[in-house]
């Protein structure tokens, strides 16, 4: 005995089935030459269009899966949890950075092809997959872990609900890179730490238990640090977790001025 699985979900989402076309940026590196399969592949990116039938509650990820599973198995993208918590499937959808699993197709204009591209500013590995290593390297540089001195208490460190609330927003980050790869400064200068790294620094700088704020502020005072931010707010718009990214960056800048080094 199971729920009716194939039926579109409940009346609230009762949008009838419809058709969408996706225009997807494809890329395969030229060194992917397999002797048994003939000629090396083209290294030039191309655009492919696919049309699929979808349900009212389907997301862009569902459409990508339909394409991969029914039309072209070689279409390549990352995904895991499929409900916006693992951060695998950040991509550029109609020119905006979003998670494919949180973007409902019914909310996009179905009269035009939905344009899907990899996020910008990171090297493309294949199709919608980019090399995340530079992104994580910036994250690691800001010392994203609690720093304390002295002896540890036997029980928990005390923290008031208000102190806990102070950094709540930036604890929500899932490291999907939607913010960093939407930042025009990052596009032109890959050395810039980028919003995600600063958000994660903020998470510790404003944690009452942490004692490494000064070190992190020194790191972010670097020429590739927070001062490169031009407050274009792309990052805040891109964040699938609703983090006020630009505000967090501004708070870090302010802390740099007000906290004595």
């Amino acid at each position, binding site marked *: *005995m*199971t*729920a*009716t*699985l194939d*039926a*579109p*979900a*409940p*009346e*609230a*989402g*009762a949008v009838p089935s419809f058709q969408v076309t996706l225009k997807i940026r494809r890329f*395969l590196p030229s060194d*992917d030459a*397999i002797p*048994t*399969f003939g000629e090396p592949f083209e290294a030039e990116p191309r655009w492919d269009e696919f049309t699929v039938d979808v349900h009212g*509650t389907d997301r862009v990820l569902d459409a990508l899966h339909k394409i*991969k*599973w*029914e039309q072209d*198995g*070689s279409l*390549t993208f990352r995904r*895991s*949890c*499929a*409900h*916006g*918590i*693992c*951060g695998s499937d950040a991509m550029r959808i109609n020119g905006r950075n979003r998670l494919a699993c*949180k973007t*409902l197709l019914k909310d996009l204009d179905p009269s035009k092809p939905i344009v899907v591209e990899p996020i910008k500013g990171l090297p493309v*590995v*294949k199709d919608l*997959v980019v090399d995340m290593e530079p992104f994580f390297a910036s994250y690691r540089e800001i*010392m*994203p*872990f*609690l720093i304390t001195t002295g002896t*540890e208490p036997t029980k*928990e*460190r*005390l*923290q*008031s*609900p208000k*102190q*806990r609330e102070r*950094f709540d927003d930036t*604890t*929500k*980050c*899932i*490291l999907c890179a939607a913010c960093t790869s939407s930042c025009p400064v990052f596009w032109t200068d890959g050395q810039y730490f980028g919003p995600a790294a600063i958000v994660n620094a903020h998470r*510790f700088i404003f944690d009452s*238990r*942490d004692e490494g704020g000064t070190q992190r502020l020194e790191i972010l005072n670097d020429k590739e640090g927070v001062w490169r931010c031009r407050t274009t707010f792309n990052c805040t718009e891109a964040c699938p977790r609703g983090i006020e990214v630009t505000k967090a960056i501004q708070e870090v800048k302010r802390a740099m001025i007000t906290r004595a080094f």
Partner: protein
Amino acid sequence: MQTHQYDVVIVGAGGAGMRAALESSTRVRTAVISKLYPTRSHTGAAQGGMCAALANVEEDNWEWHTFDTVKGGDYLVDQDAAEVMAKEAIDAVLDLEKMGLPFNRTPEGRIDQRRFGGHTRNHGEAAVRRSCYAADRTGHMILQTLYQQCVKNDVEFFNEFYVLDLLVDHDLAAGDVPAGEEVNVSGVVAYELATGEIHVFQAKAVVFATGGAGKIFKTTSNAHTLTGDGMALAYRRGIPLEDMEFFQFHPTGLAGLGILLSEAARGEGGILRNSEGERFMERYAPTIKDLAPRDIVARSMANEVREGRGAGPNKDYVLLDLTHLEPAHIDAKLPDITEFARTYLGIEPYTEPVPVYPTAHYAMGGIPTNIEGEVLRNADDVIKGLYAAGEVACVSVHGSNRLGTNSLLDINVFGKRAGRSAAAYAATASFVELPESPATTVEAELETIRTRPDGERVADIRRALQETMDANAQVFRTAESLTQALEDLKALRKRYEAVSVQDKTRTFNTDLLEAVELGFLLDIAETVVVGALNREESRGGHFREDFPQRDDARFMQHTMAYRRPLATGAVTVGDDDGAFSRAEEFDGYQLVLGAKPVTVTRYQPMERKY
């Protein structure tokens, strides 16, 4: 092909894997191999909390927690393991706090605690506040915090590497090794997704922490990547899988989608209602109502739907009502799950009840281990150097039904133990010689699938698998439905022999890996179905309509499922009256069942009422 050598190799970088890595990497040379970037792991999707009897907000103690765990698991729990978990829970929570985990706080600044299903005061008197939490993102915070500590400790990761074989000096699937004889692990074989290159990792100790297998079902809260890899690799090498028939269906998945809405919704006061608006849990669990354990709530919901009291146009779900809660309270305590309802169903939980239906959520079973995390190859003997922890393992603290929050606890307590044990073993052990050509099996499998010109599509077989599992092996099961599932599985296995992929490249070939993962899913599904068919009783998450009572006389033992060659006789370790002496033939091998006794320390089985 590249070869690497490490003292300890940990497979999987979710909560259990990273907790193990923090123990192991400070003691011996350790590598963590993960098919995902660590922060993508599904630990991050856990929401409600992690129980520990801190007694920060009301009286509590670890013995009550142990009792609740044992009763929650319908007495199939190994009580020594449950005691360890409940006792060490307190330090596990405090450890996480010291690592920086941002728990919600009481007005005094202590870690706040809330109610959760099946957790009670004084052996069932009333619900107790035991769950330590960070809004409804506790798993996210645990995953992030453990990864932060791994960064701090320079843990070495091999990300987007798929482990596809376990190297052991005796192939148990080729036949039984006499009891008492030593079986040793020598390493693993992995596939690098980015390049298609094969890597052999020689290791003194291997820790499996690969998580669950929810993708055997269609409606599931699990990630696409939860394909039972570690369980299947062990099973293929003849290592038994324990209690696989016990799968948890979480009551509150978003209807039609399966996306998880935490039990914390009910812990914070949410109520389940049928189409008549009735709080139906009052009839099924008069004392703790909506906070009864998940198996009971899921079955009650399915029963309401079955008896025509389901809501919605097709009367196929029930409603989770939060409308009586203050919006500010919802925002503070349940922000993510209410956003899921808005995003995916267009429902506003402040004012409308949310459509929910049970969703496949958690494998209680897995690779059998003892409380040190050592993997067992039968009811008694361990495999030297092999460890497992977390959902992939069965220690067994969850028995036939896991209590909410006990999985986040399990990964922390037993991840730590497994990492510590593996490091201690590796510190004194020497490397076991690798087989002559260790990667042959993996290379052959991958090349066969990749080069097969045209055949069955992965997605077609997988869909058929998930549909038969949902239809025949879900909340309600019968001999008839399970026999149907078994027949379907055998037919699908035939089709799988002809599986092919369209992507023939070496770079990031996820088409190929999905085909490999489908093979794992088929392996896992057969252990679930055969175990369920054999267990002619109802206990915890396993409900047989044709055997609705618990039958302690015949079935208060753990099921062990072994893959063996067709020629071998039955393996009946620890099984007195033959209740577990089933063998099921598949193409080229048989699945042989055996039993393992349940460890009972202080709680004799009682009727399970809430």
